[in-house]
């Protein structure tokens, strides 16, 4: 113990800067890891809670088999409750409306899930049953009375406050038939069911809502409370089947848990990317640790030799080094935890903006903390493993040598062989892509790390020729003393290699992120231009009858108004299971006059395709679905309509990112015929040439705004907001890539500091024979510069390779087939980043070198 204290603490004290630097690499990695996992957790939690809150303690839900306008007959409630095993059937009638006093929002709500018109949601419920199914905490007044026809309502506290509503007041609710007045009897907290629609939510007696919205005898959903004895999934499935049998084909029995799957899936995809990148930062951190320890071994060769001479065993020395690593890993990881918790605060804010839901600050999940800790410490130990063994292998004779000379290890001489094997096999694995169904992309990430390792192993073999090649450039940039510096990277090839490796990974990551983003965004923008096409976006909290279309068209300055309706549907192919997705119904004629479709590459005649859609019994399939199910134009899919399964022929494949890319586009006429829906969510308006869109928007607002509670927004501004939301979502990736580079730059600082310390004598001598301080500094900068160039160029190559591999993998996994887009500025940018980072990192060591006192340096030893 005393020995450990003596050796360990002393070595930390002697090299505090290096210890801190290498520790910081781990800290950043761990912080990234933790903050992302915490944020994700709370985002997922928020989404899930939303679902749980709305379904409450119901374990089964009954919804109409065909969605869109379809509802369930109220008699079904008693039919369901008679099924053995059902404790209670809880009816809900859902309406979207708005307070009469509430003015329409200025802007269309935008989030990850698409555009949203705001408004409020009212559930018509059976008060007694409802209280058993869902949680309500009354904060003032009372809950609904048991009278089914009472003309009363309960609102969420925050919502009432925002709208200046007090208990006891009669409030106006907008219905299709004018304003209805109901008594506000109580307020509930914004928790449990109160979280529905982000709090813009109220409950009223079932009869009352049916009457106000003219939906007598209808309900939208029946939640089923199951007998407590039904505990297993098998029992539940059996019960679901029984209920389904009793109800026939009109209704579907679903499990509430399955409903949020797509949302969570989408969030998951986003997280995989973030997780992967924070993993990369940690990976680069491992390089840093390796480097620091490898240096320590070289530096302390004499010390280790001496310790071996006086009787320390190999194992003791190795253990000693690993202990140092452990201490470092622990300290770095704990610091990372603290930083991660801080970071997660900011991240949560960003995320809640993206999702447009409030994220509750959750207690930091223990599992996430443990994972980050284990990873941080594990990576540190892994990085220190090889150097620790080397330290153990120092022979006592080496203590007698004047200076520890770094030996050309086996890795440096032969490392390229396993390197090439690793590189080739990991590329092959990524191409083969067996992880299509690994939801976390864990194995995939591992393969990418192996790829990095492979490239790093190959580097030493190339370093000398590269240095030769770059000599003229170095001379040009740094003057004659620069060549002295660039030569140094040959001297300690191990150190230089690792540093270049870290830089290379950082640069590659920046490039991958940029490449993926650009490839993704270029498609996404194209689609978004169409999705938010036209000049004015017209939306409303209440459904818009198609007559609104002709009224819009009648307004001077409006050239065309195209209705859009989103409808959840069930579909299948001849061979596949039933799937749920979203049908976007448009009127092909007006839609193409306002905006257009983004046809997938290699599409046949667009005009023909649109015509085919207009003819009916045809759909456009999104590229993701087409890819996923191997469907081509001309194939047939089936959708569950009011009259059962109906075939639709695929007229074209289009790019669509809505609903995670799983979309079917159909014609308005088909929707009316097969789903009996005839109202719109949105109108896209194009103004006549020469007209000012803002003027026309005002005109629409004056004439129709109030009546239909329209939310109008110029598409220019909407698009701008959408794109900025997009940028926000992607900026996380950039941030993480930058963290990798920062960690890599710490490696540069480390390596150069080391190099300067090691060459103190030489620098003193060079100063003595006439090297100016300036030249000394430039010499160090040149050493960094050549590493930056090397890391930059190889990083670019690797980055392009990886981006292509990722795009390829993404097409296989999610069906998004993206064209590879990489702006040349991006390439130059990454090279410049690598250079600038290397130079910044070299500043301090360069200064230190320039300040070397000549006499002390040459008298040294």
């Amino acid at each position: 113990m005393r020995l450990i204290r003596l050796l360990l603490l002393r070595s930390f004290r002697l090299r505090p800067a290096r210890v801190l630097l290498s520790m910081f690499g781990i800290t950043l990695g761990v912080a990234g890891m933790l903050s992302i996992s915490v944020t994700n957790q709370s985002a997922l939690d928020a989404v899930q809670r939303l679902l749980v809150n709305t379904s409450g303690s119901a374990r089964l839900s009954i919804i109409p088999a065909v969605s869109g306008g379809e509802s369930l007959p109220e008699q079904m409630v008693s039919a369901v409750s008679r099924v053995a095993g059902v404790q209670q059937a809880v009816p809900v009638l859902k309406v979207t409306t708005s307070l009469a006093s509430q003015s329409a929002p200025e802007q269309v709500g935008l989030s990850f899930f698409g555009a949203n018109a705001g408004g409020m949601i009212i559930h018509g419920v059976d008060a007694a049953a409802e209280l058993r199914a869902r949680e309500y905490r009354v904060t003032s007044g009372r809950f609904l009375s048991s009278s089914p026809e009472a003309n009363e309502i309960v609102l969420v506290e925050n919502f009432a406050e925002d709208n200046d509503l007090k208990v006891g007041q009669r409030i106006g609710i907008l219905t299709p038939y004018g304003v209805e007045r109901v008594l506000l009897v109580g307020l509930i907290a914004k928790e449990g069911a109160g979280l529905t629609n982000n709090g813009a939510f109220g409950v009223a007696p079932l009869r009352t809502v049916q009457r106000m919205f003219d939906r007598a005898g209808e309900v939208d959903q029946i939640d089923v409370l199951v007998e407590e004895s039904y505990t297993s999934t098998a029992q539940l499935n059996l019960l679901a089947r029984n209920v389904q049998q009793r109800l026939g084909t009109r209704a579907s029995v679903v499990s509430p848990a399955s409903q949020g799957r797509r949302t969570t899936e989408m969030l998951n995809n986003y997280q995989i990317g973030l997780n992967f990148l924070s993993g990369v930062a940690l990976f680069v951190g491992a390089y840093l640790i390796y480097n620091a320890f490898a240096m320590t071994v070289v530096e302390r060769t004499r010390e280790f030799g001496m310790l071996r001479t006086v009787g320390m065993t190999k194992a003791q020395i190795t253990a000693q080094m690993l202990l140092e690593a452990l201490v470092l890993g622990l300290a770095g990881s704990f610091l990372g935890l603290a930083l991660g918790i801080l970071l997660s605060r900011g991240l949560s804010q960003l995320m809640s903006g993206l999702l447009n839901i409030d994220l509750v600050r959750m207690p930091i999940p223990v599992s996430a903390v443990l994972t980050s800790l284990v990873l941080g410490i594990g990576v540190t130990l892994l990085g220190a493993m090889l150097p620790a063994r080397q330290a153990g292998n120092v022979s006592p004779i080496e203590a007698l040598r004047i200076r520890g000379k770094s030996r050309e290890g086996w890795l440096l001489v032969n490392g390229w062989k396993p390197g090439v094997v690793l590189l080739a096999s990991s590329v092959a694995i990524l191409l083969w892509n067996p992880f299509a169904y690994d939801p976390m992309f864990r194995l995939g990430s591992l393969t990418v790390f192996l790829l990095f390792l492979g490239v790093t192993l190959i580097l030493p073999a190339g370093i000398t020729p590269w240095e030769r090649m770059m000599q003229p450039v170095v001379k040009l940039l740094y003057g004659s003393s620069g060549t002295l510096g660039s030569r140094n990277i040959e001297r300690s090839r191990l150190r230089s290699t690792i540093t270049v490796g870290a830089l290379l990974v950082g640069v590659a990551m920046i490039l991958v992120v940029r490449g993926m983003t650009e490839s993704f965004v270029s498609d996404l923008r194209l689609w978004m231009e169409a999705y938010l096409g036209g000049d004015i976006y017209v939306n409303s909290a209440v459904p818009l009858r198609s007559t609104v279309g002709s009224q819009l068209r009648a307004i001077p300055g409006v050239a065309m108004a195209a209705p859009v309706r989103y409808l959840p549907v069930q579909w299948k192919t001849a061979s596949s299971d039933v799937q749920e997705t979203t049908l976007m119904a448009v009127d092909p004629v007006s839609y193409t006059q306002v905006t257009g479709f983004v046809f997938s590459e290699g599409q046949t005649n667009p005009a023909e395709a649109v015509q085919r859609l207009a003819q009916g019994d045809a759909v456009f399939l999104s590229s993701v679905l087409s890819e996923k199910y191997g469907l081509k134009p001309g194939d047939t899919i089936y959708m569950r309509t009011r009259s059962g399964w109906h075939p639709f022929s695929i007229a074209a494949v289009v790019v669509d990112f809505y609903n995670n890319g799983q979309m079917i586009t159909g014609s308005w006429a088909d929707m009316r015929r097969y789903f009996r829906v005839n109202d719109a969510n949105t109108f896209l308006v194009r103004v006549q040439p020469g007209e000012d869109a803002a003027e026309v928007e005002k005109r629409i607002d004056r004439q129709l705004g109030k009546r239909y509670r329209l939310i109008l927004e110029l598409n220019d501004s909407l698009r701008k907001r959408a794109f900025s939301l997009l940028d926000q979502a992607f900026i996380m990736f950039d941030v993480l890539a930058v963290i990798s580079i920062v960690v890599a730059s710490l490696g540069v600082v480390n390596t150069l500091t080391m190099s300067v310390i090691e060459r103190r004598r030489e620098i003193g001598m060079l100063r003595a024979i006439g090297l100016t301080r300036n030249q000394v500094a430039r010499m160090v900068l040149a050493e960094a510069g050549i590493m930056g160039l090397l890391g930059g160029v190889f990083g670019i190559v690797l980055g392009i390779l990886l981006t292509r591999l990722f795009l390829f993998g993404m097409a296989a996994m999610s069906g998004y087939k993206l064209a590879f887009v990489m702006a040349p500025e991006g390439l130059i940018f990454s090279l410049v980043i690598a250079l600038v980072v290397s130079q910044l990192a070299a500043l301090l060591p360069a200064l230190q070198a320039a300040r070397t006192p000549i006499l002390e340096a040459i008298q040294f030893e």
Partner: protein
Amino acid sequence: MKILEAQNLHKTYELGKVTVRALAGVNFSVSAGEFVAIMGPSGSGKSTLLHLLGGLDQPSGGVVILSGQQLSGLSDKQVTLMRRRNIGFVFQFFNLLPTLTAEENILLPVIIDGQDPRKYEGFLVRLLDLIGLTDRRHHRPDQLSGGEQQRVALARALINQPAILLADEPTGNLDSKTSKAMMELLRRSCTELGQTIVMVTHDPRAAAYADRVVFIKDGQINQEIQFSSEDDLPKRYRQIVEIMEHLELSE
């Protein structure tokens, strides 16, 4: 003609409360083409003097004038350029750059100065011939023996024909045979190339190659011997040893 002159040089080191007087008023000059050896007991201030003469350190008092230029008062950059162009150094430890070949090491001052090394090809060949390493010019320091490395260091110090060559114990790390070769080289540099040399040494055999020996004690010049060209090495050696013994006895 005096090429190097030190007037009333003082150097004190403050070590906490203790003040070490390394040099206490040294007056010393070297003429062009002269070969001077500086001797004295350990700690007498020989290296300190040499460092001040070479502009590696600043005196606490007094001045150093090299080729008519006063060294103290110059900026670091000016002194550095002075060293680069007018002074050659040879140290006890060979101090070559391990990444460069022998030839590149020799040309280092030229490279540092941003000059075209090819212009020095002729002189380089002559120097390589002088130090006897013509066939090893492309070898790296770790492929050379200590004596060979020291010869390369000498050639490096000579490459730009400095006004003065300063050497601190150039044979300190060599055995007697290689020491002899080294000293012969220094002598030839002086005689054949007209190189002015100031050399610090402990070794009376080495000092015997000089034209003049200056003895330092307690930071001051204590004695001097000027040899005549007729004196042979053994005679010089005896003279030096005699004075050394005398100095040690008076301790």
